[in-house]
């Protein structure tokens, strides 16, 4: 079995299993914790609308905070959108998904994907430098923050190397790229990458709690 066979076979199956099972386990684990009913008289009915509002509202800072936070938000968006475009709109990735789901969708030109990847890596580096130099972020960061950075950045770097065909041996390079993605998937349920789910749960929770009360969060 070559490294590529391993990456495409058992490694992939294992990674996807941990990824799916881990996410479900962690989400259900939190959901299963004690729910307390709020018995106070709601100021307004349909708190769920507030939950939906909260989801959207927190996507961008309120006006008084924009000066201080704009750069961080922009960097954050670049990273997240970069991930989205590269994962889902790069031709070889679409072919991979097509294999699994049985259908595909239009791709972005390779040149655009390369540019997006480079910009995203740039944004990831800026985010890391900020984490290391800003005293607040430095204090509150832990292993998870740095490891998450590592497993997120690695597939971009190995992917660029694969697309640019700079490996000494293409197939081994591709295998390394795949393995770096599986590492991301395996780590996903254990660390803060789970914020891909928590952001919705948490924003919805606060939004609906405060819709009940009025006020703002």
């Amino acid at each position, binding site marked *: 079995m070559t490294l590529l066979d391993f990456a495409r076979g058992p490694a992939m199956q294992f990674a996807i299993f941990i990824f799916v099972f881990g996410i479900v386990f962690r989400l259900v684990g939190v959901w299963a914790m004690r729910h307390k009913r709020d018995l106070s008289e709601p100021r307004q009915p349909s708190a769920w609308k507030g939950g939906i509002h909260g989801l959207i509202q927190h996507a961008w800072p309120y006006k008084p905070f924009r000066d201080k936070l704009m750069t961080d938000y922009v960097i954050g968006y670049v990273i997240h959108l970069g991930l989205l475009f590269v994962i889902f709109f790069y031709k070889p990735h679409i072919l991979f998904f097509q294999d699994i789901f049985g259908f595909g969708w239009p791709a972005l030109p390779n040149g655009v994907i390369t540019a997006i990847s480079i910009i995203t890596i740039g944004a990831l580096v800026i985010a890391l430098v900020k984490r290391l130099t800003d005293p607040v972020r430095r204090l*509150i960061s832990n292993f998870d923050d740095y490891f998450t950075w590592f497993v997120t950045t690695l597939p971009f770097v190995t992917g660029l190397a694969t697309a640019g065909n700079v490996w000494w041996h293409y197939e081994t390079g591709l295998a390394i790229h795949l393995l770096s993605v599986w590492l991301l998937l395996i780590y996903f349920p254990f660390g803060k990458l789970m914020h891909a789910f928590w952001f919705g749960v948490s924003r919805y929770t606060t939004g609906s*709690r*405060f819709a009940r009360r009025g006020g703002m969060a």
Partner: protein
Amino acid sequence: MSDATTTDIPVDLESKRLTVTRPDIRFDKQGELGDDERVQKAMQHFAKDFGYIAANYMEACVHCGACAQACPFYEANPDPKLTPIWKLEPFKQAYKREAGPLSFFYKTLNLKSKVTIEQLEEWQELLYDTCTMCGRCTLVCPMSIDIATLVGMARHGMFHAGLVPHELYTVTEKAEREGSPLGATPKVFADRVEWMEDEHEVDMPLDADKADVLVLMSSIEIQKYPESMAATGKILNQMGKSWTFHTEGYEATNFGMLSGNTQWQKDMTMKIISTAEKIGAELVILPECGHAYQALRWQGANMLGRPLPFKVQHISEFLAEAVESGAIRVNKVDKSVAFHDPCQVSRRGGATPAPRKILEALGVELREPESTGNLNFCCGGGGGVITIHRADSLRYKIMGNKLEQLDATGAEMMVTSCSNCRQNFDDSGEKLHWDKQMNSLLELVAENLVEDTKS
């Protein structure tokens, strides 16, 4: 430390802000527990709060640090330790190690270490002295984490570990024992009602057997701004309401909630609820006090275990309805006004529009500061912070920022609807040589009430 040592300090009634006199020796640890027992108690009580809401907040943090940018304490002193989410570190650590879905890994592999007594002691200042539970950090958090609620929860563990700042513990213990944190015992309250009745020639029913409306006061008002009582009486009489004060349930403040003792919180709330039920009240009016609104309006039913059998309104909500319905009329006040929103009534309480309706009826020119209403910048005195002497210097700094924002409006008159904020403005304003004064919205309405109207 025996409780007597820590609680025998008298209330300093001469000071601009009310708390106990500055203790010569601080006792920031209560009871005789050993260190291990303290940690154990903290963990037990933290665990009680690890429900779904706390859990998803603690899972969600991405360590982005944005919350620091909204916190008045961090703004006054940009020490990274004052980052809102950092204030919860031991609570979070306990959650991850003991309760979260991955706790098995964290514990077995010791990925999160045990919370230590040193940590808890260090965090006393972060959980009590430097958080008013104002909720401003939630506004900027991309995950919308309600840190104020979590700080309130973490205080439960701290209280039971006997790790409450000396003064806050002392006033809380007084409140549980005497019925008031600031010496406004039932007898003092009755005397002051009588005094205000004479002074202002307003009838103020006390201990009526039956009444539609039960009116509460905060100790700060009873002791420091007793005119509030007369103002409330004048307005309710004008409206022809059947109302009463009651010596069995008059105190609106809830230091059980602020310091983190849920049983005491419940005791304090139950006094009000039983009194209201006893006299058949349909409405309980809360005074100009922010956290009282939180305690009864939003947590009261949860303490009782069923919905409250009466309606609860902050006085500003009651007055807004009264001016809107025409139940009272007010004279126009030809002044420009800046309003300071009490966090617990506005952002965290939801009564933000009420004072604005009243000010509109008063015909003032309302000048809003840049960060106002639900986005309001906290005055730095809430959450029990104002009682703690060692928190003074930071509180004054926060107030410095607050005064700048208010002064920038160029308004002639400053108004708020929380007597705790008001005493903070009085105290800090004097320290900072502020050339203005904070006024009560309720008193402003009472002064400008058109007295011949009958509802």
